[in-house]
């Protein structure tokens, strides 16, 4: 598989997306546009999600690059360290933006503080992304190389970057830590199934005595579960990058997770949810909502199946 190609394709999304998001957000402060603000939050969430495959494809790209003796492993490790820092800030930006979107869709108190929080974190993220882009670009572009010596802001940021090899070792040092992480991963799974899954089932007609609208209030817990799983999943990937990279079940799982989230977003954005929001006890949801719920349920089920099949499909992608 051509991981380098995927990595080059995907690694522009975080940088361009975050800059566009910041631009829209700043503009929304000037012209006071709710739509602009919502758009910027959408851009942040989508960008954060696309950062996951961008990050993950990096390991395979590294292995492919190192086949060339001319390529400097030190430059690669510096880039990896910067990526292992920015990914958390990107995730935080996306999570805060997601909370903002969820609240702006409901008649809740307007959350001004949150928007400022998103702006602050996203500005930090832009700086860290610039560093990650720079260190990444230098790996192959000798014409822009200014060596391993960092100066100015880059040197300041470098102080906060983890050493990739130590980070990896830390993750796999103890089976107690690994079991703890995986327990949290299962807790996240359970929260998704117990909230989004049950809402989907109700829309499809199971447990009909429940009105649909109140069930929706459980969904933030499911999204929190998803957040737990992004964090624990990334930590696991950092611990065993090669194991996951050359695994078809894992790579498909990442694709299906993104599809499941897209179906989640479409459920709310296409009006499928509005169609069935008013359905009371015993009521039947319209067909469009049912279709949407069925697709969502199928995708989350596929995520669990693929996750479980990572283990037997070790080395299923040729190196």
């Amino acid at each position, binding site marked *: 598989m051509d991981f380098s190609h995927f990595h080059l394709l995907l690694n522009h999304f975080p940088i361009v997306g975050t800059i566009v998001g910041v631009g829209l957000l700043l503009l929304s402060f000037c012209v006071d546009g709710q739509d602009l603000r919502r758009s910027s939050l959408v851009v942040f969430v989508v960008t954060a999600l696309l950062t996951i495959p961008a990050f993950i494809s990096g390991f395979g790209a590294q292995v492919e690059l190192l086949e060339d003796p001319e390529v400097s492993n030190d430059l690669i490790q510096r880039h990896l360290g910067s990526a292992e820092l920015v990914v958390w800030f990107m995730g935080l930006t996306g999570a805060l933006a997601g909370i903002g979107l969820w609240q702006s869709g409901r008649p809740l108190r307007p959350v001004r503080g949150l928007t400022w929080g998103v702006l602050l974190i996203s500005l930090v993220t832009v700086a860290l992304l610039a560093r990650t882009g720079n260190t990444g670009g230098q790996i192959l572009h000798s014409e822009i190389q200014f060596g391993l010596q960092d100066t100015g802001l880059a040197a300041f940021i470098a102080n906060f970057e983890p050493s990739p090899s130590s980070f990896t070792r830390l993750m796999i040092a103890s*089976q*107690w830590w*690994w*079991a*703890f992480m*995986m*327990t949290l991963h*299962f*807790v996240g*799974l*359970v*929260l*998704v*199934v*117990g*909230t989004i*899954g*049950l809402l989907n089932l109700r829309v499809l007609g*199971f*447990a009909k*005595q*429940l*009105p649909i*609208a*109140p*069930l929706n*209030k*459980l969904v933030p*817990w499911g999204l929190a579960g998803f957040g737990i799983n992004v964090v624990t999943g990334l930590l696991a990937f950092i611990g065993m990058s090669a194991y996951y990279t050359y695994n078809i079940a894992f790579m498909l799982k990442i694709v299906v997770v993104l599809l499941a989230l897209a179906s989640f977003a479409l459920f709310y954005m296409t009006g499928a949810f509005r169609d069935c929001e008013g359905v009371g*006890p015993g009521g039947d949801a319209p067909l469009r909502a049912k279709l949407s719920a069925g697709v969502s349920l199928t995708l989350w*089920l596929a995520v*669990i*199946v693929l*996750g*479980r*099949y990572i*283990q*037997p499909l070790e080395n299923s992608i040729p190196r």
Partner: protein
Amino acid sequence: MELPLWVDAFEQYGLSKWLRESRSLVIGYYPILLLHTLGLSLVVGPNAAINLRLLGVAGDIPLAPLRRWFSLIWFGLVLNVTSGVLLVYVYPVKSLTNPVFYIKLALLGFAIWILLRIKTRVFDDSGLNEADMVARGRMLAVWSLLAWMSVLGAGRLLAYTCHYLLYAVPC
């Protein structure tokens, strides 16, 4: 640890051997493991939602109709007892020589006991109004969340620890 010979005989029994050595994704060890995961999400997922509701999350979900979710929980439990027994059958020595296995069983017993208490005390008493149901269920919900999380934790730990893989084969 000295294990009785019958465990070895058990392990060498054709079906156990066949399931253990099958790399198939349709029938064998991994599909059983998959059923165990699907079962746990059916047991713990609705459980977690019911517990959260009893603790005041999404307070306008009517409590009484949540009774219907117990059918998912029972189905999940049947799936997990079946797949769990099969998992022990496939790797008897690995399970029986690991203390975590017995801890998990004890925690599971406690979690199921709490689950049954919630079912009978909160949901089976049709004379209760919502406030009574919450009053009766609140503490049980806390215990239930803790218990099922511990079961999950013990299950994960079981996957990453072992003393013997097979009879007389240390890990």
